[in-house]
């Protein structure tokens, strides 16, 4: 089908850089997610891939052929817009067949394609309805059907689920995955929702401020974030960061009266071969940060006071602050049934293997120990 390569794409709007020298390779039949906060350049990238926007510099290749000068209609892309862009003055049938009408195809063939695609999406019963009368959920499916019907080589989905309510979103997420596997198109999926990106994509490109932060599998993006931004953006509740410094085998953490974490000898050597700077940020995900009532042997003075907790059914999120700094919030994810008392003093426990060590100045990941 299609393999996409973006090479040093730059797009500016006035003084603002929307996309800054982006290079990205998307394999044939791959499903990738562009993930990032609003305004980080995701939609601009989609518009450039589709040809609606010309990059200021850089090249776009489909299957190794440069397509910079190919008009959008000839690129073989299907684009589903965030606001669905359903034509409300037409019926559902006219909406869906719209992309085929222009290709001078036989009426009967158009009809057959429309039936096929509406069967796949289970919206056959809506065909004669006016598009303006559709519910938001059906509108989403019509938009999907319309962009699918031309059997594009490349499928661009711009936040397709963001307008749906939470229950339907998870159903449509599964649906999208099924459809993509059935059709096997190369798909670029824009979202700001990490759950969508993690569950759908083969690879995730995390964007921030026009710059690609990391491009990797969901597993690697989550477990080996390249920098503070990526670590912070993925994961719910968000990762804990501790400001501090490293010296001679131990971390001293701010916010605690006497916060020390001592590394094992094996890891000390491994870290020091890579650490050039002693100011660090220590990251640890809430699910790896456990609370103990009695002193643990892993560190010294890592004490925190319980502020509140949220029983979420399958787990309990406990919010604490370190003993010397009430403005820092620490999150810990505990097993269900865990019931702390507000104001209790707890001992934090985590293992070296779950630590992310970031360089405080460059914000890049320095080390994550593995077993």
């Amino acid at each position, binding site marked *: 089908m299609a393999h996409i390569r973006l090479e040093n794409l730059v797009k500016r709007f006035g003084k603002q850089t929307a996309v800054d020298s982006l290079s990205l390779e998307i394999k044939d039949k791959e499903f990738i997610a562009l993930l990032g906060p609003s305004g980080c350049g995701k939609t601009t990238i989609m518009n450039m891939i589709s040809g609606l926007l010309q990059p200021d510099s850089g090249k776009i290749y489909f299957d190794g052929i440069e397509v910079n000068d190919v008009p959008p*209609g000839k690129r073989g892309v299907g*684009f589903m*817009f965030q*606001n*669905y*862009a359903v*034509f409300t003055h037409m019926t559902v049938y006219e909406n869906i067949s719209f992309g085929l009408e222009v290709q001078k195809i036989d009426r009967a063939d158009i009809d057959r394609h429309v039936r096929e695609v509406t069967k796949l999406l289970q919206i056959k019963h809506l065909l004669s309805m006016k598009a303006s009368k559709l519910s938001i959920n059906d509108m989403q499916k019509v938009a999907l059907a319309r962009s699918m019907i031309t059997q594009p080589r490349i499928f661009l989905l711009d936040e397709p689920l963001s307008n749906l309510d939470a229950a339907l979103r998870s159903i449509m997420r599964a649906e999208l995955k099924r459809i993509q596997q059935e059709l096997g198109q190369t798909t670029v999926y824009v979202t700001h929702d990490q759950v969508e990106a993690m569950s759908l994509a083969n690879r995730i490109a995390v964007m921030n401020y026009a710059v690609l932060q990391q491009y990797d599998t969901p597993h690697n993006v989550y477990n080996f974030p390249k920098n503070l931004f990526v670590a912070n953006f993925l994961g719910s509740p968000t990762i804990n960061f501790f400001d501090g410094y490293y010296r001679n085998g131990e971390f001293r953490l701010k916010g605690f009266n006497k916060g020390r974490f001592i590394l094992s000898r094996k890891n000390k050597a491994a870290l020091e071969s890579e650490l050039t700077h002693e100011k660090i940020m220590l990251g640890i995900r809430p699910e790896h940060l456990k609370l103990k009532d009695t002193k643990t042997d892993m560190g010294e003075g890592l004490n925190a006071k319980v502020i509140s907790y949220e029983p979420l059914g399958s787990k309990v999120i406990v919010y604490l602050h370190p003993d010397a700094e009430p403005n820092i919030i620490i999150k810990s994810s505990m097993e269900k049934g865990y019931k702390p008392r507000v104001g209790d003093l707890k001992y934090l426990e985590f293992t070296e293997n779950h630590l992310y060590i970031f360089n405080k100045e460059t914000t890049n990941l320095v080390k994550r120990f593995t077993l």
Partner: protein
Amino acid sequence: MVQKLYVRILKYALIVILALISFFPVYWTITMAFKPFAEWTSATGKIFWAPNHLTLKNFKDVFPSTTGAFFSPIPESALPPLIHSFVIVVVATIIAMVVGVLAAYGVSRYKKGGQLPFFLLQLRMFPPIAVIIPIMIMWAFLRMIDTWYGMVIIYATVTLPFSTWLMKTFYDDIPRELSEAAVVDGYTDFEAFKKVVLPLAKGGIASTALFVFILNWSDFLIAYIITDKDWATIPVHINKLQTALVGQLYGPKAALALIALIPPVVFGILIQKYLVRGLTFGAIKK
């Protein structure tokens, strides 16, 4: 929040007064059209709030069967001016709409045209009377005085700012993604405009056209100066309805005004369903 009673009474009283003030001329025109001479003339010194003896004489008088009669109070039929008005205004409105609809799209969607919208707006910044004398002189040189095309050019030019600006606001409300979706599907920009944007802007086009039509239809000043005998329009003809003997012929004037009211009203009713702005703008969920 519940308003105090006297505030509400005051509010409604004000609305009623304003309504009365604005509807009174309409009421007066309609009733006067059906009053016989003795009731609409001021010569008797009496005011008739409603016609005592309903008559259609005024309507007959404005269309005299024999024109040019020496003793007739109204020597000319109102039929030619009605036709003139219709031809001039319809052609001018079509031109203003075609140009406005296209220009506004370029301005709204492609940000092209630079200062064009502002230049257009400038056309409306001074009263037409300020330029009508030079225009009359120019038109005289060009032999366009008292011609239908001379009038069409002026009317189309004068209303173009309205059609362009109004259409621009309608286009601004149509999400860009709609035409982009068509372009991605392989339609050209113009096809996308024709198939997607234009149908969605129907309501805007209809109300803009009505507005432009009314503006042109009701113009007196320009027509009064540019036209004479051959292409006099309805407002000009209404003005002519006066004699040395009785002065202003208010009855026939009112009757003709009532007739002149019909085209804009019919037009308005025909496109009524498009007049509700925002009817078609449900394409996106914000």
